[in-house]
């Protein structure tokens, strides 16, 4: 498991998945990252910092946005 810092670049409240710019990736973002359901949708706004937990570092679907901040 790995914790990675990122920035929210998009959010689909229907699927509750986010597009996240992980730290170190200037140009390309990771799409479709599940967001913890205990985070209110209104808080997942573009530009906010976030923390992504990768259960499997190699599988973007096996991850969750644990927190948003700032």
């Amino acid at each position, binding site marked *: 498991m790995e914790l990675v810092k990122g920035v929210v670049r998009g959010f689909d409240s229907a699927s509750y998945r986010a*597009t996240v*710019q*992980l730290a170190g990736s*200037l140009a390309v973002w990771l799409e479709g990252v599940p967001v913890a359901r205990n985070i209110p949708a209104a808080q997942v706004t573009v530009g906010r910092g976030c923390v992504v937990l990768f259960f499997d*570092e190699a599988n*973007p*679907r096996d991850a969750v946005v644990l927190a948003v901040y700032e």
Partner: protein
Amino acid sequence: MRFLPPALADAQRSLSAVPYLEVTLSQRRAGVARAAFQRLYSGGEPAGPHAAALAGDGSLLRARIAGGQLYYQRVPSPGPGAPFASWTPLTSAQQSVALAALGSQVLLAYVAADGSVAVRESQDYGASFGAAVAVLPSAAGARHLALALKGGEALLAYASPSQVAVVRRTGGSWGSLSAWPHSLGSISGLACHYGGDYDLLVTGEEASGRAGVWTVVFGDGYRQASGTWSPLREVQRADAGSGVSFAAPCLSAPDLYRLAFVESYSGSQPYARLQLSHLAPDIDFADNWWREPLPSDITGSYGVAMASAPGVLWLSSTDGVWRADLSAAVLDVSGSVLALEMEEVPWGGRLRLQLVDDAALSGPNGPLQPGAEVAVSLGYLTADGPLASPAPRHWLTAVEVRSEGGRRMATLEAVSAWGLLGAWRARRQFAWAAGERNVFAILSFLWARAGIPFTTVSYSQAAVDLRPAFTVQPGQSGLEAVRRLLAMVPDVVLLSQNYALLKHPLDTETPVYTYGNDHPVLAAVARRSPPVANRVQVYGQGAFAEAFLWEDVDRSGERLLQVHDLNVASAAQAADRALWEARRLRLSLVSEEVTVPTNCAQELYDVVTVTEPSLGLTAARRRVLSIRTSYDARRGLYRQRLGLGAP
């Protein structure tokens, strides 16, 4: 095992054979010459659209547009001090200009003042041109042009704001337009080169705003059916809103396909920087496996044009000319080798060489520079003369020169292709959705990013069928990514000369060599150690399976390895994965180590038979899990230690 000529096989089985090593150095990476550009001209011309080509007589042809005027230049003997500042105004033009040359034929295309596209042709290496021929009307909306020539045929490619189309000239007549079936939001640049098909490079943005560099092939029957278009294939991308965009692509093939484009960033610390890349060796343009683009200190939003001949690559902008010699001379240092230690192991490998040095070798401009490619061939003096078999290539990481008692000696440290893969780090997120690419294709992509061609000696069905969701995190090394990917399949990777090779190690494999009878075993060690784990549990998406190494569970108790992978979506997949993990555990166990006279053709993961009475081995099948080759000219030593395990 590598090819072993009979005379070499006879020699290496003899205890009295004379060692023969070939060691060469060159400024290459996986056989591809490093392009070290030397700037030959710095002028004051304003930035703008430009083009370049190299005519068959070696003349460098350049064209540029400034202030609505098309300027042209032909430098018959390009080199330091050549008249790169001398331009001839030709006609009024705008937007874009393109040049292509083949032998004495040269084509010059430009967007005329009225928006139409005109082409002029030269049959004397660009010394003079015929009258302009209008090929496209202004209604075509051409913004970017590219030209390619093949014997007796020409192709003009153009990009309107969002479309690419081509028109061919055969038998002296321009044909009808063929528009691509793709759609982009906007196109910022276009390049084309003929390589069996018409190969194009496009920069721009998708309708969603995602920027990219793509290749696309207009077929001429090599990899793409004649007159048809391939899919767009991504070389580089930047998501909408990231502030990163791409433009000014160019393409050439002096030795293999090389490309360049400008990457611009509009955020804090903005830049517009040239990026250079090349295909992995022996890979077709249509396969689209490019080395990680290398940033260049050449800046400017119009980028460069490429012009080339075999062994030489030119870059040209409106105000600059650069030249790179791609001959990458090979320096033979075989006669200077004092000692060699070469280690071939899974996921690694290194080389340590000691050479008699003179100032010419290790001087500031000498060939002993970090990054240089070292090619070692192991051999013997045989009845047919000196024969040698090429070992995997290495690349220098350190050079140490020692002077003692008036004698100079250089010690070279080098890494194998695994070291190059480990040095490559993802500078962005790479992600493949489930079903998008199979394991082999993702492995090929990752090895190509490090500049290493990847192919197979054998492969499992899983390497072809499994199309996992997979990502490489920014900052992660290629080695880490490849390890994670290989964990999903039963295959292994070995190195052979410039190549990384996928192999499916079957326990039914036929032995390829015999030690202990004809080929003597000089020393032998048996080792008993438990595997890292002897029980594997695989947890997938609603699927679970286990595998055991029962012989070890009985002997040393249970040690558990758990695998969690959401790509495992069925009980059958889980069972397969558990079996592969168990097999991997067995393959990692070295049970014996034998010392033998060097077998010049031995490769990692070969299955061999070993007869060594002291260890109770009689024609025992074993897999080679490590190879450590030692040569010391001063001690007359030339041996290999082979780590062996279950087949």
